[in-house]
């Protein structure tokens, strides 16, 4: 008994120490930077950079009223003056500091800066009020110039101004301009993503719409009921493919649309196109970029089977891999040259398989480079396209 009591105690103590160590690591993680400075200059530099990075966080959406209000607090720390105000063309964005009764006049003070784009210094005559204790007696106002336009103005109010404050204000305004431009770039990037997605949607249509309508037309006289059903499928397919709204959907929805697509293709190919789906029910609720499976299937039909006499078989498999789902689209068609596929995936050519390159790019954009398409193919050996999607990724939500 004594032997077996000591060992667990030792392990418990060791475990406790480990836990403490881990906790202290976590706590000290944020502070590690504040130690080990050689001089006060270093420390001041760090403090400035740190304040700037805090302010940058709030400006990452551009000059929004809430973001500006939070950023203004840090800008005031940078400038070391009692009050900092941010104004744009429409009005005041943020007033940080005491003497709120001056707030309404800040927009007026900045009007000249907004018009000319030049820094101005205002004295007591223009700024001060009747209250002798009021810290707002003079101001430096500098323009925020982004993309050759005066977007906003930074105003530093204080009892008196100096050349140092004027220059510092100008620098801060320039820094804010950089942040605004960065935010703008971010917006542009997501707009580009959306545009790319829209391009993919539009891109399915031409061949497929023509072929489907031709196939449906051939049934109109011989089998009107079937023609009607196919038209309804076609309507549902286009509604899904051309929908607006979010960029993500569930695997169940995506597969439902693949099925519609295949019904229409089978109307054209008949028995030449054989399809098998094997889907683990556990992965049906997984969220993934919408139109990420359908282009792969379309690619398999167009490039794998259409050129092959006697048709072929397409297998769509979705399996549960724990924290991820794995989706495979496989055909036994004519296959293609691996080098050509590589070029498509690297987006060096806009070859026939643009669907593949686009799906690959979108998957990588959303989930990171570990989650691109994996293509196995050789001439005459069919094609197998595999990709994985994590069951959870921050910011990824399905929309109905």
């Amino acid at each position, binding site marked *: 008994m004594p032997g077996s009591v000591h060992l667990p105690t030792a392990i418990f103590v060791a475990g406790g120490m480990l836990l403490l160590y881990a906790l202290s690591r976590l706590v000290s993680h944020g502070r590690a930077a504040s130690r080990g400075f050689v001089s006060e200059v270093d420390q001041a530099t760090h403090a400035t950079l740190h304040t700037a990075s805090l302010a940058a966080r709030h400006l990452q959406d551009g000059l929004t009223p809430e973001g500006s209000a939070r950023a203004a607090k840090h800008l005031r720390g940078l400038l070391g003056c009692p009050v900092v105000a941010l104004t744009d063309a429409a009005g005041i964005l943020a007033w940080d500091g005491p003497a709120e009764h001056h707030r309404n006049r800040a927009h007026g003070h900045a009007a000249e800066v907004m018009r000319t784009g030049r820094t101005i210094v205002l004295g007591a005559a223009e700024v001060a009020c009747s209250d002798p204790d009021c810290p707002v007696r003079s101001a430096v106002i500098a323009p925020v110039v982004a993309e050759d336009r005066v977007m906003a103005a930074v105003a530093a109010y204080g009892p008196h101004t100096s050349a140092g404050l004027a220059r510092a204000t100008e620098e801060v305004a320039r820094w804010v301009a950089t942040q605004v431009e960065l935010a703008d770039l971010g917006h542009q990037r997501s707009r580009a993503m959306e545009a790319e997605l829209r391009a993919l949607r539009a891109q399915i249509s031409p061949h497929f719409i023509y072929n489907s309508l031709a196939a449906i037309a051939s049934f109109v006289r011989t089998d009107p009921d079937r023609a009607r059903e196919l038209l309804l499928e076609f309507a549902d397919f286009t509604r899904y493919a051309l929908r607006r709204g979010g960029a993500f959907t569930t695997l169940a929805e995506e597969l439902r649309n693949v099925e519609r697509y*295949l019904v229409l293709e089978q109307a054209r190919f008949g028995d030449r196109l054989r*399809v098998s789906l*094997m889907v683990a029910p556990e992965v*049906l609720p997984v969220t993934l970029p919408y139109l990420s499976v359908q282009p792969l299937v379309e690619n398999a039909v167009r490039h794998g089977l259409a050129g092959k006499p006697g048709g072929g078989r397409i297998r769509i498999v979705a399996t549960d891999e724990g924290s991820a789902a794995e989706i495979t689209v496989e055909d036994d068609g004519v296959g293609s040259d691996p080098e050509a596929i590589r070029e498509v995936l690297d987006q060096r050519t806009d070859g026939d398989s643009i669907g593949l390159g686009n799906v690959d790019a979108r998957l990588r954009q959303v989930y990171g480079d570990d989650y691109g398409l994996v293509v196995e193919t050789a001439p005459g050996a069919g094609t197998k396209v595999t990709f994985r999607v994590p069951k959870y990724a*921050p910011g990824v939500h399905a929309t109905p």
Partner: protein
Amino acid sequence: MGRLNTAYGVVAIALVCLVTLAVGSFGLRLSRTTSDFYVAGRTVTPYRNASAIGGEYLSAASFLGIAGLVYTNGLDMLWFPVGYTVGYVVLLVLVAAPLRRSGAYTLPDFAEARLESLAIRRLSTILVVGIGWLYLLPQLQGASLALEAVTGAPGWLGGLVVAVVVVANVAAGGMRSITLVQALQYWVKLTAIAVPAFVLLGAWFSDGAPGPAIARDTRWEEPLNGLAGQGHPVYATYSLLLALALGTMGLPHVLVRFYTNPDGRAARRTTLTVVALLGTFYLFPPLYGLLGRVYLPQLPDGVAADTLVLRLPMAMVSDGLGQVLAAVLAGGAFAAFLSTASGLTMSVAGVIDQDLLRRRLGRLTGEDFSAAQGFRLATVLAVVVPYVASRVVEPVGLATMVSLAFAVAASTFCPLLVLGSWWRGLSTSGAAAGLVVGGTLATAAVGITVLAGPVPGWPGALLGQPAAWSIPLAFAVSVIVSLATPGRIPRHTARTMVRLHTPEDLVLERG
């Protein structure tokens, strides 16, 4: 009472292990629905998913532990099955649908989705691994006890068998939370415990339904006679109930199952079915405890009460039938160890792999490893640590051990999940403070209870059942720190809350 017949028991246990392994390797085929079209409509139904949750949830504590507790400590122990079930009622009312709608697959996922902070994610990861290990420990101990009781094998073997089967299964790619297999597990366990129970009840009636033999001074049949003889029974009972009721939502292998539900409504329906299924199962373990009092008033020295279920058939019915029943029960118990241990190992290994190992391995090996290798390594880690601990730590009783895991889960993830789902004022700092305070206090209490042995008086009661003070404390710290740091409320809180609480088929901008 002689030793149980080794042959029957070994055959039953070997059969369960082999079937588990076989299903693991053939399972991939089973798990796929094959058809031409309209596969997508076949999401997992709430009923099947509920069976799967039941199959994964009913552990060694349920199968063996409760009977042992009722046998030793009396009617108070009936609160254990009540608590295990009530946890799902709380889950149903408070968090089932918001959890599903958050899109989270693991608890760290939910923490990250709600609080938009990687630090909180890391903290949750550490806690998930800790709770998972704490919960795996009694599974492995139970396996050792069961194998020892049935075959007389040395104590280290049973746990090792379970550990090896689970690692082989998970690492080979099988048993990956296959709903159908886990759903069948529930019915296997229910049959394994119910059929012998009915046979034994029949034997009891044909004996003229004798009353239990209770020593005068034990107050076995009275309520509130003190949990495990610790004293302060009222406090201990309420604390235990609180731990079990609020801890279920924080168990790592429970949330993973909710992801399979297609939407929040299905998540609620699943939870309701789980309550019914668990309620049915828990009718039986107390019966064994009671019959044990009737037929085995005195267990031989050095025999753990947790093995009562396995010993009872031999004491009650003729040799041949008794051996068969004991073998069925041993098989069922092993099924319980294996399924719970697999589910836990999967969750813990997933979290270790994703949050702790992957980046580090990548750096160490220069990206020279595959994702599957990383997951295998994580699986081994997830099992080896609790196995070693199960050999070192003195057993304190299966159900007690499990209730400690519940206490830690309730003190950490319950505040995070409940406040996270229902209070928009929760700040990142508040959540972190709640997790740290709740986790540290509950872990310390558990550690002292498990390692230092029983402490007398109030301190003993407080440490033995920490939930009643550690949960309110964790809540309070979360709320106070959140109120003090309004600046740290996540930026997209309003948007997240809308997503957590609106039905999925409602069309709105969820961004």
